[in-house]
């Protein structure tokens, strides 16, 4: 069995070099580029033999963690289909255990994993040069490679099972946004570091955290062994491999014993966002709102204005002489506040089309929740960029948790208040099809706008206070701000959705009179 699958794997590898000339040239060029890159990396790693322990360990752990994450994420983002998908072997009647092992073994024979093995050899040499026992280095690299291979297989199997029929522009966009949320802060963080010939303390702290996470533990083993603190990383590394192996085995079993429902792919055709969101009323409302937020100029203007004006708020402060490091702290909370506030008149934007929700007797909470999805999807990535940039410009990373707490509190409680106000106090908005700046004659609504804004600021006051303490030098208050702020936000949001939903169900008739009168 294993030999068969291995031979198949080799045949596939060689097969990549067949085909028409253009494709072969491209493959060869890619392999050559990869070899070149690999040589450079190996050379760089070997040069680190003379560097201080701290530098070598930082590079190894951060790089290793990055590679591990890459192995897991690539299949989810829509890499090429896995030629060794276990389901393809279903017709041969192989036992799941044997198949799981064979496919795993064969997966080692692939370009990425082979490159990783080369890197692993260099890493063993590197850690050896820094005084680590060769055995520990080998164990570390083997565990690391196993984590990568297993993670990649598990992710590919999941993607094939869960995502394949849902693949669409919308979903890929969603995953990319998710990636952005993770990558941007990391890049900003790394870019803001000041090396000056030694490892910055923030990075050391980050490495310490990575060393006990599943993605970094295996790579940290030899370095922690040097310091004598290898117990936790080794447990985490071994545990990770075991958990991944068990998951892989279960997945193979599952893939072999279930059938695909071809109907699902048919059902999703042409539905756009509706195919991505769950098939419940709130899911449908979320999809519908997303389509409007992303296509209707009235909404687009809204969410373009917020970040731009947030940046502009800094200008007057800097002009009057507030130091940039302080003024820079303003945009992120500003964005959070106004994104939470944006939804406060959402119902009025539907105009008379609201009748569909009223006539269908949609549960109020489902309506409230669904409508908040687009603004959340847009605001979260923006905040994920704005918060680290803000803190990076300020320069003190201890402020990060406080900033997250403040923004979370402002944004979530803003959404909560908006859920209430759009039901209780809607006011005329520009109608569907009108230009975004074409405001109706009778606007009013100043009260609703003010109440939502002030209410949000009031309930977020504790988080703001803790953040202020942090700014004044109390690092403990940062964590208070984080958890306190998030708790406040979640509480207000939940209350807003439930109460707003309750009112929505009871005020359907009056809401219809309102939208018809506009």
């Amino acid at each position, binding site marked *: 069995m294993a030999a068969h699958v291995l031979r198949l794997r080799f045949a596939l590898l060689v097969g990549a070099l067949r085909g028409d000339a253009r494709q072969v040239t491209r493959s060869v060029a890619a392999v050559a580029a990869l070899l070149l890159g690999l040589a450079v990396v190996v050379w760089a790693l070997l040069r680190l033999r003379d560097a201080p322990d701290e530098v070598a360990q930082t590079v190894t752990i951060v790089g290793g963690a990055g590679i591990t994450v890459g192995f897991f994420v690539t299949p989810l983002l829509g890499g090429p289909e896995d030629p060794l998908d276990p389901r393809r072997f279903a017709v041969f009647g192989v036992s799941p255990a044997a198949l799981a092992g064979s496919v795993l073994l064969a997966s080692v024979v692939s370009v990425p994993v082979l490159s990783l093995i080369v890197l692993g050899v260099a890493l063993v040499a590197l850690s050896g040069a820094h005084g680590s026992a060769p055995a520990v280095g080998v164990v570390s690299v083997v565990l690391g490679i196993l984590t990568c291979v297993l993670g990649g297989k598990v992710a590919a199997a999941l993607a094939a099972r869960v995502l394949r029929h849902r693949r669409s522009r919308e979903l890929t966009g969603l995953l990319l946004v998710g990636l952005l949320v993770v990558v941007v802060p990391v890049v900003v963080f790394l870019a803001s570091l000041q090396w000056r010939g030694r490892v910055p303390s923030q990075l050391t702290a980050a490495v310490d955290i990575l060393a006990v996470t599943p993605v970094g533990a295996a790579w940290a083993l030899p370095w922690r062994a040097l310091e004598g603190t290898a117990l936790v990383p080794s447990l985490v590394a071994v545990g990770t491999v075991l958990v991944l192996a068990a998951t892989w085995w279960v997945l193979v079993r599952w893939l072999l014993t279930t059938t695909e429902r071809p109907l699902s792919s048919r059902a999703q055709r*042409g539905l*756009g966002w509706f195919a991505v969101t769950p098939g419940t009323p709130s899911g449908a409302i979320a999809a519908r709102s997303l389509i409007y937020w992303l296509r209707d100029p009235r909404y687009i203007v809204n969410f373009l204005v917020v970040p731009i004006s947030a940046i502009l708020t800094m200008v007057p402060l800097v002009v009057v002489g507030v130091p940039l490091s302080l003024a820079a702290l303003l945009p992120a909370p500003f964005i959070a506040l106004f994104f939470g506030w944006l939804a406060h008149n959402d119902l009025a934007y539907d*105009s*008379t089309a609201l009748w*569909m*929700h*009223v006539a269908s*007797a949609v549960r109020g909470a489902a309506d409230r929740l669904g409508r908040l999805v687009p603004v959340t999807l847009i605001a979260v990535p923006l905040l994920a960029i704005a918060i680290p940039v803000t803190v990076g410009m300020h320069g003190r990373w201890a402020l990060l948790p406080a900033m997250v707490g403040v923004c979370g509190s402002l944004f979530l409680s803003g959404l909560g208040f908006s859920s209430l106000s759009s039901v209780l106090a809607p006011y005329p908005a520009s109608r*569907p099809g009108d230009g975004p700046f074409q405001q109706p004659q009778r606007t009013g609504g100043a009260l609703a706008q003010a109440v939502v804004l002030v209410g949000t600021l009031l309930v977020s006051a504790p988080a703001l206070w803790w953040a202020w303490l942090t700014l004044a030098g109390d690092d403990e208050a940062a964590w208070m701000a984080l958890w306190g702020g998030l708790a406040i936000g979640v509480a207000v949001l939940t209350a807003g959705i439930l109460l707003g939903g309750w009112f929505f169900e009871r005020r359907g008739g009056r809401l219809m009179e309102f939208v*018809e009168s506009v």
Partner: protein
Amino acid sequence: MDITDSSSAAPPLPGISAAEAAENPSSALPAPATPRAPRKTAPRSASARTSGSSKPSGSAKKSAPRTAKAPAPAGAEDAAAQPVTAPPKPRVSAAAVAAAYRDEAPAAPPAVPDTEVEQAADAPAAEAPAAEAPAEDAPVAKARPAAKKKSAARKSAKPPKPEPEAAEPEVVEPEVVEPAVVEPEAVEPAIVEPESVEPAIVEPVIVEPEAGEPVTTADAVIPSETPDDADAQTDPDSSAPAPTVLSEVAADTDVPAVRLRGVAKSFGETRAVDAIDLSIPAGTFYGVVGPNGAGKTTTLSMIAGLLRPDRGTIEIAGIDLAAEPARAKRMMGILPDRLRTFDRLTGRQLLHYYGVLRGLAPAVVESRAADLARAFDLAGDLGRTVADYSAGMTKKVMLAGAMIHSPRVLVLDEPFEAVDPVSSAIILDILKAYVAHGGTVILSSHGMELVERVCSGVAVVVAGQVLAEGTVDEVRGELTLEQRFIELAGGLSDVEGLEWLHTFSG
């Protein structure tokens, strides 16, 4: 006024059917949907006979498909051998059909056709060989379950074959003569049919027997018919709810589908609706007519739960709309007039939205949306955004959305405004079939002729009050509905003061 009695509601139908039989050729144009017509018109088939024979070409074509199935299983050769005995055959089949019809809709056997049919039933007994009588019964009995299943499956979209036999018999007569030419192919239909559910249903007609000929007429049209069968079989989900609905409706016909008691609504100073009482029995096609600004839309909006009445109560199938809005609203499908829809969605997305908001599973929505799109002739346009649709298409897609959760009551505000004649004929067919299966349609319209032709009950609303209500016959009395309506609305005042209009300036 008493419209709750179902038998009194029924009579208008036969009348309509006769009128329709004449019209049918035109409405037959859109292929899939039209064959439906005969289904509900079944009972009055006997009375339709004369019109059928007088217009051989049009009606002959229509009826052919159904007769087709009948003979097919019987074995074409035997039948063909027999002389063309036109007269006996139709009668026998009419009898079989009548029996079938009585079984299926015991609640409302229309008076007029019934008697005629009975006569027909007697006739064959005498003429046909004795052995056939039992044979006739048996197939009918067999047909029953199949017919039910079928009609259920069809309910959402497709041309119905189950009942159709009812309509044909007489109509068949004309063709029997002509199509001898076609005979050769007679055999294939037999092959095609079996897979469709038909055979069982069709059997009863076989009794007609000596009438070998029908077989021949059959195949001429069959091709167009078979694809439909295929479709019908592919929509399994829709079959589920239908039977239960049928039985329930039969159980609670006493409970009016909609009841308004003292309902009033004011907008500021204006009294839009002033203490309206209405009781609309289940299983009726009900029209609300009135001049502009009379309060029709406000009334329908209140029934739909979109507006809250200032006073009075509204019950939907016995459920208080104010007390249990969610349950009551679930019973209704709504087509508002003048209200927007989410027109940045494509047609497919909009139908999906309608269905999922109503709590249907996405897979069910998908298959029903496909059925509805086919029935409303929208299949080719589902990928475009609704904003790009014409007014009539928007109306159609919204009507389809109103039906997607198979409601008990349809509340339609001006459903035929801006809809072309072909589409409105299709919509009308769908709605009639819906009513025939126990659904209730309430519509407002300015088209008096349409209301008179289609509705069994009507209410005339003027200045927020119901001035007349009851069956169409009761309301119109000696006049046409339009004359009666103008009379109720205050008559035509002489137009004065426009003399300048008659002296042309340029």
